[in-house]
């Protein structure tokens, strides 16, 4: 049990996917302009992460033992088709949610956090439960980083920023400061 809590907290705060591993930076810098959309994108990504963890575990256990060199290709194909499938399912079951997510849903395929999660989980040899907890923690961490970033960006829009700083340069420096703050969480586990 302790082990599972550790995996969750580690993926959520200490080794945050966005701020410590630089995974999923494209949506992090691209669509973090508004608070509500970033939150929704975070939830959708978490959902895909959990499904991917499930698929990655299944592939690793039953198929890839026989052909480890196909790992990358099969992961990427599974992720792309999962996202496609989820897109169709949501469209059928809940058109309102589908409309709210809009373009972000297909974009999740090119989010390197998803593939990164599958590869990390494989490299660390997580079993099914550990993998799912890891995916939940990573998704929650991604959502947290997105929401924090969106909040900060909404603030900077209201303030008088020098014209040179505007845009990606400012966002990257804000992300750097956020990342520095998150490094403080590394102390959480040094005593245990």
């Amino acid at each position: 049990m302790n082990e599972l809590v550790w995996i969750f907290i580690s993926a959520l705060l200490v080794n945050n996917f966005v701020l410590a591993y630089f995974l999923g930076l494209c949506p992090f810098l691209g669509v973090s302009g508004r608070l509500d959309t970033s939150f929704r994108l975070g939830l959708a990504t978490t959902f895909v992460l959990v499904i991917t963890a499930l698929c990655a575990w299944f592939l690793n256990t039953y198929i890839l033992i026989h052909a480890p060199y196909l790992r990358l290709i099969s992961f990427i194909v599974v992720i792309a088709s999962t996202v496609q499938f989820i897109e169709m399912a949501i469209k059928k079951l809940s058109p309102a949610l589908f409309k709210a997510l809009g373009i972000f849903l297909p974009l999740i395929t090119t989010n390197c956090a998803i593939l990164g999660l599958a590869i990390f989980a494989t490299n660390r040899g997580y079993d099914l439960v550990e993998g799912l907890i890891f995916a939940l923690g990573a998704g929650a961490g991604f959502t947290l980083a997105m929401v924090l970033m969106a909040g900060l960006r909404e603030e900077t829009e209201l303030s008088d920023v020098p014209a040179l700083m505007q845009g990606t340069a400012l966002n990257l420096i804000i992300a750097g400061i956020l990342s520095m703050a998150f490094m403080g969480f590394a102390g959480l586990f040094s005593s245990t």
Partner: protein
Amino acid sequence: METDKNLDAYQEFVKGLWRDNPVFVQVLGMCPMLAVTNSAINALVMGGATLFVLIGSSFLVASLKKWIPKQVRISLYIIIIATFVTVADYSLLALMPGVHKELGAFIPLIVANCMILGRQEAFASRHGVRFAVLDAAGMALGFTLALFALGSVREILGNGSLFNIPLFGDTFEPWVIMILPPGGFITLGLILLVFNWAAVRKQRFMQQVAEAERETL
């Protein structure tokens, strides 16, 4: 290929290095960019792997484009890219096990580098093989250049060395933050700032030239 006639081979190669630099101008491919640039050698190996993957897949996509159906093209591009990444991953493991271990999961993650998929969709699938390879080489070299710039700045400041050769002697206190994640974000932010500044200056200069021309007329 009617569109290829008005392309200049040299221009197609050079544009990726500076004017359309994938990192500094288009801000693409950020994930591997920031994660592996804590030392110059890691940055160069990552750049080399990207070069191989991008040239290989651009070549293949440009030669196969007549047989690739429109509806499934993105999935096919991704499978082609993933194949080359697998080759690069296993070759690095065999040739440079040390660096491969340090780069870890970020070699397979080249697949998710949106810059590579972007070149297939925007260029290789619409032009001949020769231009596709030239464009890929230019873009990948521009990417490597950016990786190397970021990696050497971070290694010099964060470790006091370049390619593991100490530069400053014993009295230098390394800025550890530079080789940690925050240093990556902040260094890239500052480099982009310099690029913005250069762009604004150039624009102002062009305006002055235009005004001066108008006055002389």
